[in-house]
């Protein structure tokens, strides 16, 4: 069955083509095509997962695409446990999000186009997951970037949305440039694009370690861009301008996880370059902390979730940087479910309230029970409360971070902040008094096609982590592993500690936003500076504006003036000179050449107008002349 795994992405490509070419005018049909394609892909992924579970080996299928002497580029599939898990995650989230979108996007004028983009995205993401070489993964890497751009700017009539799309595309492209350089370095050293061949060479120590370190850091640049890690994290919060299901699918569950997946896939490279791996861990930890602290004070429900996503991705990077392959990928999987659920829940709330500002919501619990309960389940999961899935994956990360106490402290701090800001959202949105009575009146539970995906994801958010319970004999860690199946020893102390941290975060949020026994206003007054800095996201956008964007803009303006002043002037001057030259030629032509021609004609005209007078048309004249002619001839002849 693994040999046919190419069908999984191919189905979505077919659906994309069908929608674009045939059913663009029939929105319902387009949605069904897209959903049935991804649902079939999901079924196939389940089959592949069960087969890989039975026989956990990595199988590779290649088709050689470009053959050059001594060098070839392949298209192929690499199906190993990591791929199988990723296929499951992507297809299931994609399927649920597409079902949800039918309700959420109902009545949108570009409904079909939306589903065609979703299909294209699903195709690209599945292709990325299945890739067996760097060349192929880069193609799909860029394709997911493109679809992300298309979907962020889906409502391009809004300037913020189209700007956000551009920002996302350009920012991730910056990272991709590094990725490309990394690939080039690695490939020029190894002589092949193929993952396994490169990894074998690295393990056989045939590639200089300095090259490995450099290429690892460059490859990580790509992951930094795609997974919105510091310093390229600025695009993800803005990407929230896209439709909410898109945020759930692309900017929470799957595409942003591609960076994590890439690092996991290239684990051998990072494992062989300890300093590069350390960079990954440091960036991950720093990003996790930075984003979580910004998330504390944001007021836009989707932005809080976006910073939460960045922070959780930082977690995964932290784990991978410490070569916690299992922990990173495990958290990637559980995070996909609960973060997709959080976004879809937020979408449901936004659908009901027509606002993103949490301070205009409140008291929604009685009106939207399903949304509220599922949202709280996801929040408990992300906070790491026993026995929700986030608890198990977070513990794995803590266990890995425990290698270096600094990272453990950061991870615990982040866990505390995560619990706090998530329950801040929950309490402000679903409990307390309604703040905007008018909007509250209109609020209603979302339709079934939106709530059912929520419930399925809620179920997954609770149970997905159970495959990684450390007491299990054959759990996640004995299936997805790097080199050796590592058996995470259940660390009761850490578990209790993390639960205490999460509970204290939740209680603080409870006290501040439900009981209101700690006044937020007073805190704001007491610490105006930290609040302002956090509220303005550490001024990263402003910083980038001043040090990168504005200099580039002014350089562009300068070049524009240079263009206008020098280049255009030169071109115009040349043009003017040519016009002048042709004026001279024109004068010569019309005066000298034409004058000559006309002059000759004039001469003949004058002569002939004299001579023509002889031709009177009167035969008698001619006869007279002939007569005199003969007389003269006679006289000359005979005299």
């Amino acid at each position: 069955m693994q040999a046919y795994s190419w069908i999984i992405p191919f189905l979505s490509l077919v659906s994309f083509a069908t929608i674009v070419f045939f059913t663009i005018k029939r929105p319902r049909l387009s949605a069904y095509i897209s959903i049935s394609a991804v649902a079939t892909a999901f079924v196939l992924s389940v089959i592949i997962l069960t087969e890989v579970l039975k026989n956990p080996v990595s199988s590779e299928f290649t088709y050689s695409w470009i053959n050059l002497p001594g060098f070839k580029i392949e298209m192929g599939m690499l199906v190993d446990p990591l791929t199988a898990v990723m296929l499951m995650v992507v297809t299931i989230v994609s399927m649920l999000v597409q079902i949800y979108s039918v309700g959420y996007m109902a009545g949108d004028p570009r409904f079909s186009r939306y589903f065609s983009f979703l299909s294209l995205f699903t195709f690209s993401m599945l292709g990325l997951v299945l890739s067996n070489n760097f060349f192929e993964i880069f193609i799909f890497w860029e394709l997911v970037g493109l679809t992300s751009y298309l979907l962020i700017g889906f409502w391009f009539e809004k300037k913020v949305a189209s700007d956000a799309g551009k920002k996302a595309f350009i920012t991730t492209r910056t990272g991709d440039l590094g990725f490309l350089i990394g690939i080039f370095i690695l490939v020029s050293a190894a002589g092949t694009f193929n993952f396994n061949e490169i990894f074998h060479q690295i393990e056989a120590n045939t590639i200089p370690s300095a090259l490995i370190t450099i290429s690892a850091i460059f490859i990580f640049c790509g992951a930094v861009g795609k997974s919105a890690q510091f310093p390229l994290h600025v695009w993800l919060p803005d990407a929230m301008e896209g439709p909410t299901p898109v945020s759930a699918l692309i900017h929470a569950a799957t595409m942003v996880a591609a960076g994590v997946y890439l690092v996991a896939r290239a684990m051998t490279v990072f494992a062989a370059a300890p300093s590069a791996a350390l960079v990954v861990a440091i960036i991950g930890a720093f990003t996790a902390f930075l984003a979580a602290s910004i998330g504390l004070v944001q007021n836009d429900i989707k932005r809080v979730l976006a910073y939460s996503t960045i922070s959780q991705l930082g977690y995964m990077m932290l784990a991978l940087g410490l070569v916690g392959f299992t922990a990173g990928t495990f958290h990637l999987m559980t995070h996909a479910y609960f973060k997709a659920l959080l976004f879809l829940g937020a979408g449901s709330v936004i659908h009901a309230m027509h606002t993103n500002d949490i301070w205009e919501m409140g008291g929604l619990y009685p009106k939207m029970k399903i949304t509220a309960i599922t949202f709280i389940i996801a929040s408990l999961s992300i906070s790491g409360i026993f026995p929700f899935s986030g608890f198990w994956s977070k513990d794995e990360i803590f266990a890995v971070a425990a290698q270096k106490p600094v990272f453990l402290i950061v991870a615990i701090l982040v866990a505390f902040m995560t619990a706090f800001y998530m329950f801040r959202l929950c309490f402000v949105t679903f409990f307390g008094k309604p703040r905007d009575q008018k909007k509250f009146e209109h609020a209603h539970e979302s339709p079934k096609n939106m709530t059912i995906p929520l419930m399925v994801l809620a179920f997954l958010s609770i149970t997905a982590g159970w495959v990684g319970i450390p007491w299990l004999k054959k759990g996640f860690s004995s299936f997805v592993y790097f080199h050796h199946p590592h058996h995470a020893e259940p660390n009761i102390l850490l578990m209790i500690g993390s639960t205490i941290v999460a509970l204290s975060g939740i209680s603080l949020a409870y006290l501040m936003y439900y009981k209101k026994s700690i006044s937020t206003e007073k805190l704001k007054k007491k610490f105006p500076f930290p609040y302002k800095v956090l509220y303005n996201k550490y001024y990263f956008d402003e910083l980038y504006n001043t040090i990168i964007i504005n200099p580039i803009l002014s350089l562009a303006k300068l070049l524009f003036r240079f263009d206008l002043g020098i280049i255009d002037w030169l071109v115009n001057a040349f043009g003017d000179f040519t016009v002048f030259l042709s004026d001279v030629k024109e004068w010569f032509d019309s005066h000298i050449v034409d004058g000559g021609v006309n002059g000759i004609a004039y001469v003949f005209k004058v002569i002939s107008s004299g001579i023509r007078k002889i031709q009177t048309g009167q035969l008698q004249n001619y006869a007279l002349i002939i007569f005199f002619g003969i007389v003269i001839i006679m006289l000359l002849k005979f005299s």
Partner: protein
Amino acid sequence: MLTLVHYLSLAAILFCIGIYGAITRRNAIGVLMAIELMFNAANINFIAFSKFITPTLLTGQVFAIFVIAIAAAEATVGLAIVILIYRHHKEINVDKINVMKW
């Protein structure tokens, strides 16, 4: 005694009258008549030379008969042209007819 010179002189005078008439007459019919005069001057020459130079041969006289025949045909064509011109221009004054001018 009438000699060859007398005949030739008559023919020359007749021819001159013909030329004069052909050149100066305004009326197209008159021009045609003047041309007839010139033909006949030539005929007199033919016959005179035939009589005085080759009395035994009749070549000149036969030639004169041919000329008369051809002159008759020519007069027919000429008169036909004149009639057509007249129908077209209501005019037989040769001075006024200058359609052959450039």
